[in-house]
């Protein structure tokens, strides 16, 4: 009897562990791994998945077996045996989970140390979050951009902050996420390993436009990256670049700046219709009002409340006027 129980337990254990390995090895639950960090995080994830699979099938299996096996027989109104406990069993199912948890904890700690240590000679990229767009700065080049480009294989440290409420900078393909908190700078180290275009998402509720606060990171060869940097620097002397840096292009279409978003009204040919929008405001006056107080007039078919309200504070009067002049000049 005792031998049979042992034998059965061994079979069940082997089957469960095999199942754990199978699920952990075969499951494909995350986006393509695009950074060194992703490889390490996924390895840890697979270990957790394997252990959880064993526990899951052990418990659910025992539950289903008990439900099928120990149903009351018809007509039997007597009680079941009065078993109050079993000390060795209780010690066992306290100690084994404790041991598993210790191993997982130590392993997680090692992975954490590894993924948060930046690679050799990292490039710093500043990430600026605001309702509801992302801005980027390359301090070495003193260059502000609205797109994030990275050279493949080169370590990078993101320095992340926010201009208004809390956001969270998340690149699922990198497996990394860090909150953008106003008044402080948080760092996240990444080494991209795959070229391609990967989504950037805001992961912390930040207001009405939380779900449209998206962007993307372009990981490319060092040569392509250098070419892009040079092109961006040339653009920086252009007022259109200023438009981009502010993040306007995240929501507005403007051919002159190469943007195609449709969250807010399109801005091409604005000068021709701006004068008719609000009685008492000329074209330039209307454009200025729309920048500093966007809900003063809502173009029919668009939603109020999405555009940041703080451009009046963020821009100097000269900058506002330069932007108005740029927009008025667009064909």
């Amino acid at each position: 009897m005792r031998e049979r129980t042992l034998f059965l337990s061994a079979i069940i254990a082997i089957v469960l562990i095999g199942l754990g390995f199978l699920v952990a090895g075969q499951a494909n639950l995350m986006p393509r791994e695009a950074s060194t960090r992703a490889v390490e995080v996924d390895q840890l994830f697979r270990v957790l998945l394997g252990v959880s699979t064993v526990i899951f099938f052990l418990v659910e299996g025992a539950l289903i077996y008990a439900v099928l096996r120990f149903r009351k027989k018809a007509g039997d109104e007597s009680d079941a045996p009065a078993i109050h406990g079993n000390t060795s069993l209780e010690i066992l199912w306290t100690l084994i989970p404790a041991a598993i948890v210790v191993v997982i904890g130590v392993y997680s700690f090692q992975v954490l140390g590894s993924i948060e240590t930046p690679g050799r000679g990292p490039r710093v990229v500043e990430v600026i979050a605001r309702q509801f767009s992302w801005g980027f700065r390359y301090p070495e080049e003193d260059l502000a951009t609205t797109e994030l480009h990275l050279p493949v294989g080169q370590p990078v440290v993101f320095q992340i902050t926010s201009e208004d409420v809390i956001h969270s900078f998340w690149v699922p393909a990198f497996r990394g996420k860090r909150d953008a908190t106003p008044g402080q700078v948080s760092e996240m180290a990444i080494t991209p390993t795959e070229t391609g275009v990967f989504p950037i998402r805001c992961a912390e509720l930040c207001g009405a436009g939380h779900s449209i606060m998206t962007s993307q990171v372009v990981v490319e060869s060092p040569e392509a990256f250098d070419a892009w940097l040079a092109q961006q620097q040339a653009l920086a002397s252009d007022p259109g670049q200023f438009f981009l840096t502010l993040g306007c292009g995240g929501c507005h279409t403007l051919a002159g700046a190469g943007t195609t978003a449709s969250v807010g009204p399109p801005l091409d040919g604005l000068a021709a219709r701006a004068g008719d929008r609000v009685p008492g405001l000329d074209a330039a006056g209307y454009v200025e009002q729309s920048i500093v107080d966007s809900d003063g007039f809502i173009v029919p078919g668009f939603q109020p409340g999405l555009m940041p309200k703080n451009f009046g504070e963020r821009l100097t009067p000269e900058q506002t006027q330069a932007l108005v002049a740029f927009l008025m000049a667009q064909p």
Partner: protein
Amino acid sequence: MTATSASPGWRRYFTWNTDHKVIGVQYIVTAFVFFMLAGILAMLVRTELRAPGKDIIDGATYNQVMTNHGSLMIFLWILPVLAGFGNYLIPLMIGARDMAFPRLNALSYWLIPPAGLLMLASFFAGGAEAGWTAYVPLSIGGPPGQTLWALSVILLGFSNIMGAINFLTTTITMRAPGLSMWRLPLFVWGMLATAILSLTATPVLTAGLVLVAFDRMIGTQFFAVASGGDPILWQNLFWFYSHPAVYIMILPAMGIVSEVLPVFSRKPIFGYRMIALSSMAIAVLGMTVWAHHMFTSGMDPRLRIPFMVSSMIIAVPTGVKIFSWLATIWDGKLRFTTPMLFALGFISMFLIGGLTGIFLAAIPVDLHVHDTYFVVAHLHFVLFGGSVSAVYAGLYYWFPKITGRMYDERTGRLHFAANFIGSNLTYLPMFAAGLMGMPRRVADYDPEFTVYNELATFGSLLLAVSVLPFLYNVILSWARGPKASANPWSGKTLEWQASSPPPPENFEQIPTVTSDPYAYGEEAPKAAEPAAAPATG
């Protein structure tokens, strides 16, 4: 018995009444009304998310709906319904005539309806849009509805603290003769652990919300970044309460499961002392894990390690409970009544919530899945698959005691089946969506996540429909179900010694306790014989 049921009738439920049973029913029914409202909001969310793109509501409205869904479910459904069970059951289970402070008890109930109305009123004042977490500075800058939201939660905080004082005092001082702590029903142990957590943690949230309300109403600068205020401070204050709140919402639910399983297995609970101690261990450890919600925030990176360790250790006492429940039904003579089905459903779904909690505690994985639909799935498996399943188990189990009538078993099983399938269909796909890159609290998403969201929306429809057989069953049975005897389940805890429903002051004579509450399979020891303490080994 004759004088009791004839007395004040149904009208007493709408009055200031100090009978703990009336207050218990007031809590439960009021909470259920808010559950229905929060469920309607959930259906709005799922309808909007059925397909990508804007379907029925815009981003700002979505945030209001989502905020009130979460806040109502947590603060006005799960917390008060469990407090309702505590009110109804603790005096009965410990052989007392009422709670220690009956008028304080009535007051803690009567704070709830105005608080609920205040929260709903936020919809007409621009809405509360910052989620139930109300992170600053978003919640400071929001529309006036956010102030009403904060005031509502402050009121509920007071209600919660007063309730905890009552539960604690009653359990410690008013137990019947012979009812030692080691003979206390496990539901009472769960409520005891909960009361300690509430007393320690709730004042912190309430004080934090007072600061938020001051920032909004009288221009203080506690959280204003420009004046040196710290947004992370709010996260510490909030989670110092709100993680323990998860245990406040699960420990009584685990207590209900520990009551239901032995009765319908006709076996003693397995490892009584370990389960009771696990509740206390979870309560103590639960105070030390709050910052695991902040691994991605700007908190000091070195502080994350102890929080990871404490969060993982909680898996141990939780595992002890699950294994003990399995051992309880093992070799039993199982009766698959509706409460038993919901208790078994609790184990199978709470397990998923518990296992995925380990993923979230492991910091490297958390840095990917934090604030995604993985978390949404995890918390719904804990709070809906877990707490709400246990609440349903409790509602069916004590229905004969509370109403004096039996519910209909077949309708109950139908309810269980729809609820169980609906829960899994709604929440399982969310794990996949989160891992693949879908953030939580979004009104819109990438088309690649459509299939998960369609499944979830379909499941939620089933969940919504599953409430109908429950309401039908409860209302009809309460009005004209067959009369229930005092002890229809042959339970051993003290509430089954009182009549169904129990008279005011519960017992004609306070019972003397001579055995443990789960003495199944043994000849009931006659009063004279000193009963064996529940064995631990």
